[in-house]
């Protein structure tokens, strides 16, 4: 399947994410360990893609490379036509600030800031106008207007993740990376979060890259990529889908 993905990446300038033969190798006490084998694929704007796979298969590593949180050992990554692999840490941070949103399994809210301030944070970092107004709006959209001045530890897990989603969307990112967004939540909250995530995604036309091992959640995405021992393959049914769209 990897071959299929590789074939498709050429001449596709409309892709928002494009990777070419990316690998990741780390040094261990027992020598070099290759976590990711050459991976090439493309994602179209507005698409939602689930990366699924067992624990330790390399999902999160791939996500960290795509989001520019880590550097590739070899290969190239293009995010919205910017060559991520050529950027240094500062450049990658700026790119993230301008085009990327994140949602994490452990919410990753700044504990010393209120819900509202956590949401304002990316807008402030990107120096957007009226971060407070924007934050209030989106806080209302996620149904937490009444919790604006609460600190993360005063919120339930579901609420914290809603704040995280609001924070992710405030800058109207072109791409949203979500790492097991419902992994820490119960079934009811999981559904709420999923709905919120997909609705906002649709509304804003954001590209969603979602790492999960929740098959139901993965099924809601346009495509599913399977990570297995550092190798990425497209799930069959979806591959057909993808071929159809690509053509």
């Amino acid at each position: 399947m990897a071959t299929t993905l590789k074939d498709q990446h050429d001449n596709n300038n409309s892709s928002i994410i494009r990777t070419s033969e990316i690998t990741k190798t780390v040094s261990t006490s027992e020598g070099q360990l290759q976590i990711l084998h050459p991976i090439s694929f493309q994602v179209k704007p507005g698409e939602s893609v689930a990366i699924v796979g067992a624990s330790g298969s390399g999902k999160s590593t791939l996500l960290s490379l795509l989001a520019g949180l880590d550097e590739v050992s070899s290969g190239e990554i293009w995010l919205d036509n910017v060559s991520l692999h050529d950027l240094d840490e500062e450049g990658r941070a700026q790119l993230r600030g301008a085009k990327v949103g994140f949602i994490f399994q452990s919410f990753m809210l700044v504990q010393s800031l209120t819900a509202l301030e956590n949401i304002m944070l990316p807008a402030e970092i990107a120096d957007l106008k009226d971060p407070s107004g924007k934050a209030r709006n989106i806080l209302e959209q996620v149904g937490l207007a009444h919790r604006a001045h609460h600190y993360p530890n005063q919120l339930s897990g579901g609420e914290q993740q809603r704040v995280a989603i609001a924070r992710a969307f405030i800058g109207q990112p072109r791409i949203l990376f979500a790492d097991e967004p419902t992994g820490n939540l119960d079934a009811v909250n999981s559904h709420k979060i999923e709905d919120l995530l997909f609705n906002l995604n649709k509304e804003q036309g954001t590209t969603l890259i979602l790492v999960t091992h929740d098959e139901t959640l993965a099924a809601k995405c346009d495509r599913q990529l399977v990570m297995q021992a550092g190798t990425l393959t497209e799930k069959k049914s979806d591959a057909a889908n993808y071929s159809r769209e690509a053509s």
Partner: protein
Amino acid sequence: MKMVLNLAWRLFKHEARRGELTIILLAIVLSVSAVLSLSLFSERLQSALTDKSAEFLAADAQIRSSDPIPETWFEKAQSEKLQVSRQLRARSMVFGGEKMALVDLRAVSDNYPLKGHISVSNKPFGIEQEINTVPQPGHVWLESRLFQLLRVELGDEVEIGDARFIVSEVLSEIPDAGFNVFATDPLLLVNMADVSAMQITGPGSRVGYRGYFAGEEGDIERFYNWLQPQLNDDLHAWSTIKDDESAVGRSVATAERYFLLASLLAIVLAAVSIAVAAQRYSQRHFDPVAIMKTLGATQKMIRRVYTMQICFIAVVGIVLGIAFGFAIQHLVVMLLADKIEVALSVWHWRPLLIAIFTGAVCAILFSLYPLLRLFSVPPLRVLRRDMDSGLSSRSLQFGAAGGAVFLLMWIYSQDLKISAILFISGVVLVLSLLVVTFGLIWLGRKLGAGRIGPWQLAWARIRRRAMDNSVQLISFSITIMLLLVVLVMRNDMVAQWRAQLPEGTPNYFMSNITAQQKNKLEQHFADKEVRVESFYPVVRGRFVAVNDEQVNTRVSKEDEEPSEGREGLGREANLTWSNQLQRENEVIEGVWHANEGGQTQEGTFPVSVESEIAKRLDIKMGDKLTFNIGSEIVKTQVTSVRKVNWQTMQPNFFFIIHPDAMAAFEPTYITSFYLEAERKADITALMQPFPSVTLFDVDASINQLRDIVDQVSMAVEFILVLVLAAGSLVLIAQVQASMDERQQELAILRTLGAKGKLIRLSVIFEFIIIGMVAGLMAALANELSLYLLQTQVFQMDARIHVEYWLLAPIVGALVVGLLGALGCWRLLTLNTTTLLRRMV
């Protein structure tokens, strides 16, 4: 920039409100307030004590001269805003009726003394009281024993030179009388205006002149700089309270050193606490930094946000610290108001500047490395929680911290020696501790194996967190060591002071006791229940030659202008003989002439010479000294040189001759006794059967000295308490900080169902082990720094303090263990969910 400022301020505000910054803020508040209160308090004390000891010079500075002091010098001093006063000293005869006596005459100008007071009493040996004037022209004030010697009473007339005077007061005390109990001539005070009338300053007369100056230290220094080129070493001697070699001068100088030491240690304590707090601060901010970086914050932005935050913390900490420090010292001064004369109104800027500087330098330099670590936290930490900072150079951390401490100590003390001693002891301690920590890890591997119990858990933790523990161990050890240094130093110092003047130190001396009177006097005093000390035989003799070379020229200068406290060697010296070495006398060269010995083949007798006088007169071991006693010549040979502690209130002698040499002479005896203050009135009855015996009342001098020593000890005690309090707070902060780091592990153990007792015991054992090792290491390092401090800085005799080798580990284990238990107890009162949530 505005956004960065906003964000930094918001983070600061929220974190402060949520208690996230409490530890680092407390550390800065603690350091600033400790440094401020200690240095402000010690500066105030120092000026109070300097004032007090200035009383012994009767001024802040004094010039002694054997020629009249040029009037231009006084004019210049006055133009430098100094107060001036003049004195003329002479040995002169005073005649009263049929009797006459040789006196130590002091003619003083109207504003004498510039510092201290003259005391008089209404009758000889009566209760003294301060008086603010000097004798009127035509009047004379006589010391008590002159009334005995001259058989005069108040209102009678006496004659000095060509002038007649009315005796109008009994002189009890003048500030710069000196402490020498052998100042054989009684004091007599007249007005400067009468000098010309007396005609005692003619050619051949032995007259000394003194100029007294008082004012601000800077003004005095400026005046001295102007004066110095004009001083002639053969004629003039300049001295300030700092050159004061008397018991008081030395006590005050030692106390000043101690205050400096205590303040330096407070700075180091402050530095340690800020270092610990900054490390914790940095670790707690790894996540927010990673999040912000993930959300697009650049390195530059992060740097600005957190540097600003540290600045906010520093500013708030410094302001609070100043307020708090000022309050503490105000409280202390108020509590001590009736015990120590500290001028509250005097404000010293230096301590304030030092406190601010310390707070700022500590906050910046000690946060530097933790902040650099913080800046280099990779954004990937949001996904991989175990990722630490990219920066981990301990040498940079230790280098920056060590450099900052040394810089602070040096700037503050302006004394390279004392700073270097403390710093070197610290470095030796840190290096040994690193070795010990790794030794412990090795030991822990042996001991920690086997079934999991509290001991095993404790060892396992110590082993696993080797590097963190070594930092913790170092900070505990340094804290304990500093406390030990301050404590032991104080004990040794106060003990030394107290030894100078034990309770019952003789406050009266008697001389001119004849051999016939000796036994009668002893019996008489015993009947009156007054214990008399040993009797020393004395004959007056002239020291005439060294190795048959006449010494008149060499001693003439001493003769004309005897220095303070050394007047025993004049044209005539008090010679004594004994086979017994006196207390506080130590033979530093040669052998003490015990019973054997006696006359040598060359016809000389052994003599023991005091080391200072030997140096001054260039007398060496084996030199032949000739004394002229009455019409006899006594030839002696130097067989030993003694170091004498002049600070003891006992008769001391420059020359102690072998008894065989003196058998032919009829000595008089001197002795001393102690009389309680309430029995002062008995003195007349005690002395009445022995009218020819001369009595010296040194009670006032002793009380003055004891007063100073008491005040200084009290002040030192308070400084000790302040440092102990600061040190305890630092220990608490350290335990608190490390408890935080244990939170996660406790949460996991708790979740796994470990019993509270197991967790509690394991934490307590861990802290006990750390406390014990820290205590032991601190005791060893304490020994090193004390040895260096006492021998190099305080000029004291160093000794080993074995008791602390045992005490420090025990107290360290107890205190650190207890603090650990308390911290742990707080964590265990939280439920597991809260603990787990805190881990996020």
